[in-house]
C-alpha cells in the first residue's frame, strides 16, 4: 500500500513537471528592440467583448507601495479619474508596503469584495503572477501601471511609460550639455528594479556615441535624496575630478547637488535633466539650467480610463502608452509650485484629490 502511494505521488509530481507553469514573457530590458516590440504589442487592438459588464463598476487598486510622492500622486489620480465616471461606484485601495505576500492577500481580498477590475503596481512582477491568475480566472480585468510592461495572459492591459525613450531623452540631452566630454557617474534607482536596469543600459548605449565621456561609477540611490547625497559624498572623496552626474530622478539629483555644494565643488558639476519633481524644478528655476523630462504622471488616469473602456466593451488597444518629453530649463521652471514642499508634483488634480 505504501509503495503504491509513493509511486502515485512520484507520478503526479513528474506529470506536473512536464506540463510546467506558464510564466510571463521574459524580456531583455537592456535592448532597444525589446521596447520597439513592446510598442508594437501596445498598439494591437484588444478584444474587450468578454469583459463587458453592465451596471455599476467597482475598481480595486492594489498598490505595491505608497511610500513615495510620485506613487501617491498616481494613486490619487486613479481616484480622481474614477470620480469623473458615474458608472464607477467605488474605488478600493490597498497598500502592500513592499510585501509581496501581503499584496497577494490584498488582491485575494479585493476579489472577495467583488471588484470588476484591479489596477496595480506590483511589489514584484513575478511574485504577483499566481494571484493575478486567480483574478483572471474570475474574469476580473487586470491593469498594470507604471514603468514595466507585463506581458502575460493574466494581465489584461498595461498603462505604460516607456522607460527607454524617457531615459534616452535624458541621456542624450546630458551628453550634449557636457559637449561630449568628461567623467561622469550614474545615480540609479533601487538596484535590480527595471528602472535601474534600463537607465544604465540606455546610458551605456548613448555613451557609445560619445567616446570622450567616461562613466566612472554607478550608484544606487533608491530614489532617496539623503542616500544619493551620502553616496555622492563618498564619490567626492574617492575621485578628485567629477564633471557630471546622470540622474533622471530629480529627487536624487537634489541630493547630488547638495553634496557638491557642501564639498565646495559645485562649479564642476553638470547635472543631467531630471524629472518633474517639485524640488528639482525649484532648483532648475534657481540655476537656470539642466531641464527636465516629464515622468508620465498621467498614467494613473490613463489606467482608469482604460479600465472603463474595457469594462464597457469599447474598442481599445492592448496598452495605453503615456508619452514623455524633454523640457528645457525655462519650460521646466513653469512646472514648479514654489509654495509646496520639495516632495511634490505639479498636476491638474483638484484640491480635494491632492495627497493629504
Amino acid at each position, binding site marked *: 500500500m505504501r509503495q503504491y502511494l509513493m509511486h502515485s505521488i512520484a507520478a503526479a509530481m513528474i506529470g506536473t513537471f512536464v506540463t510546467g507553469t506558464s510564466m510571463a514573457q521574459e524580456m531583455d530590458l537592456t535592448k532597444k528592440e525589446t521596447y520597439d516590440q513592446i510598442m508594437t504589442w501596445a498598439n494591437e487592438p484588444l478584444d474587450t467583448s468578454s469583459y463587458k459588464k453592465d451596471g455599476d463598476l467597482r475598481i480595486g487598486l492594489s498598490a505595491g507601495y505608497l*511610500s513615495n*510622492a510620485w506613487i501617491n500622486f498616481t494613486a490619487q489620480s486613479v481616484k480622481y479619474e474614477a470620480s469623473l465616471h458615474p458608472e464607477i461606484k467605488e474605488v478600493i485601495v490597498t497598500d502592500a508596503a513592499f510585501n509581496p505576500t501581503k499584496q497577494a492577500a490584498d488582491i485575494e481580498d479585493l476579489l472577495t469584495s467583488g471588484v470588476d477590475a484591479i489596477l496595480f503596481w506590483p511589489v514584484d512582477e513575478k511574485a504577483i503572477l499566481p494571484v493575478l491568475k486567480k483574478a483572471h480566472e474570475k474574469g476580473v480585468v487586470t491593469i498594470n501601471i507604471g514603468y514595466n510592461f507585463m506581458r502575460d495572459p493574466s494581465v489584461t492591459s498595461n498603462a505604460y511609460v516607456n522607460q527607454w525613450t524617457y531615459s534616452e531623452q535624458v541621456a542624450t540631452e546630458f551628453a550634449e550639455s557636457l559637449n561630449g566630454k568628461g567623467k561622469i557617474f550614474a545615480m540609479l534607482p533601487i*538596484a535590480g528594479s527595471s528602472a535601474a536596469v534600463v537607465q544604465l543600459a540606455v546610458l551605456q548605449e548613448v555613451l557609445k556615441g560619445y567616446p570622450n565621456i567616461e562613466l566612472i561609477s554607478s550608484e544606487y540611490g533608491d530614489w532617496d535624496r*539623503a542616500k544619493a*547625497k551620502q553616496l555622492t559624498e563618498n564619490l567626492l*572623496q*574617492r575621485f578628485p575630478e567629477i564633471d557630471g552626474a546622470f540622474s533622471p530622478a530629480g529627487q536624487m539629483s537634489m541630493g547630488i547637488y547638495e553634496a557638491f555644494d*557642501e564639498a565646495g565643488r559645485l562649479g564642476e558639476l553638470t547635472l543631467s535633466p531630471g524629472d518633474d519633481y517639485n524640488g528639482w524644478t525649484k532648483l532648475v528655476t534657481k540655476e537656470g539650467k539642466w531641464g527636465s523630462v516629464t515622468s508620465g504622471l498621467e498614467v494613473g488616469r490613463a489606467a482608469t480610463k482604460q479600465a472603463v473602456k474595457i469594462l464597457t466593451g469599447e474598442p481599445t488597444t492592448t496598452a495605453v502608452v503615456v508619452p514623455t518629453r524633454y523640457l528645457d530649463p525655462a519650460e521646466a521652471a513653469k512646472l514648479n509650485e514654489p509654495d509646496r514642499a*520639495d516632495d511634490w508634483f505639479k498636476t491638474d488634480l483638484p484640491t480635494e484629490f491632492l495627497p493629504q
Partner: protein
Amino acid sequence: MSAESKPFGHSTRLPSLEKAAVWIVLVVLLLVAGLSSEAFFKLNYLTNLLRQAAPVGIAAVGVTFVMLLRGVDLSVGAVISMSAVLCALVMDGRPENLWLGIAASCVCGALIGLANGILVAHGKVSSFIMTLGMSIVVYGLVQVGSGGTARGIVSPGFREVVNSRIGGVLPVLVICLLFAVAIGIFLQSRTRFGRSVYLIGANPEAARLAGLPVNRVTVVAYAVSGLFAGLGGLALLARTGVSGTNPGAGMEFDVLAAVVLGGTTFAGGRGSVGGTFAGVMVLFIALNLANVAGLPFAAQLIIKGLIIIIASAAHSWIGAGSGGRKQE
C-alpha cells in the same frame, strides 16, 4: 564561578582591559583603514564620517542608559523618523517656527520614551517586544501624518547652519554629537540617576531591596532614550535638509551595534557612554571601509550582524565571565 553571588558585581577580572577594549579596536581599525586608503587619515574625511554618524551617535547615547538597565529600546529608528518628519511639518518653511519645530520633536521623542518606560516598568513586560511594537505604532503614525509624501519644509538656515563647518573644518553636527556625548557622560557619572542606573542594572533585586526607586529610574531612562532619539532625528533632518517618509528606518540596528560594541551589553550594569561613542566610530569606520573597498551592500549587513554577535560574546568573555543567561 557564579557572578550571581556578587551583589553589585562589576567585573572583577581586568576591568580596565574591558573599558579599553573598544578604544584599542578603534585605533587598530583606523590603522588598518588608513593602510587601505589614505583618505582615512585626512581630517576632512574623518569629520565627514562623524557628521554621517551624528544621528546614530546621538541616539546611541540615550539607548546606552536603557541597556545599562538590562533593557533595550528598539523604537529609536521610528522615533528618529517621527522626529525628522514632525520638525519639518511644524517648521513649515518659516524662520519663526525654527525653535518650535525643534521643541516639538524633543517633546514628542521624550513622550514616546515615557510611554515605553511606563509600560516596561509597570507592565513588567519584555522591553524588546514592547519597544518593537511601539516602533510599528510610531511608524504607522508617521505615515498617517505624512500621507505618504515627504511633507514639511525646513526653516531656512536650519540646514545651512547645522550642516556647515566652522572655519571650514569642524562641522557643527560633530559639535552637537560631542555635546550629546558630554551630557551623557555627565548623566552617568555625576548624577544620582546615573549611579542608580548602574546599580539597578547590575542587580535589580538587591537594588529594590536597598530601596532604590527602580520603576522611576526605568521610566526616566526610557524617556532619556526617547529624547536623544528625537535629537538624533533633528540631526538627520539637518544633514539632509528635507523631510522623508521614513528617514530613520533600520537605524535601531546601527544604534544597537554601536552600543554593544562600546561595551554595554544586555547583561546590564556594565558599559559607558564613552564606550558607546567609541563604538559608534568603530561601526562607521568599518562600514565606510566596506564601502570604499567596494564591498556590496550585502556585506555591510553581514558585518553589522557579526559585529553584534562577536562584540557581545567578546565583552561577555572579557568581563565577569558569567555569560550563560538564557533570558533578556
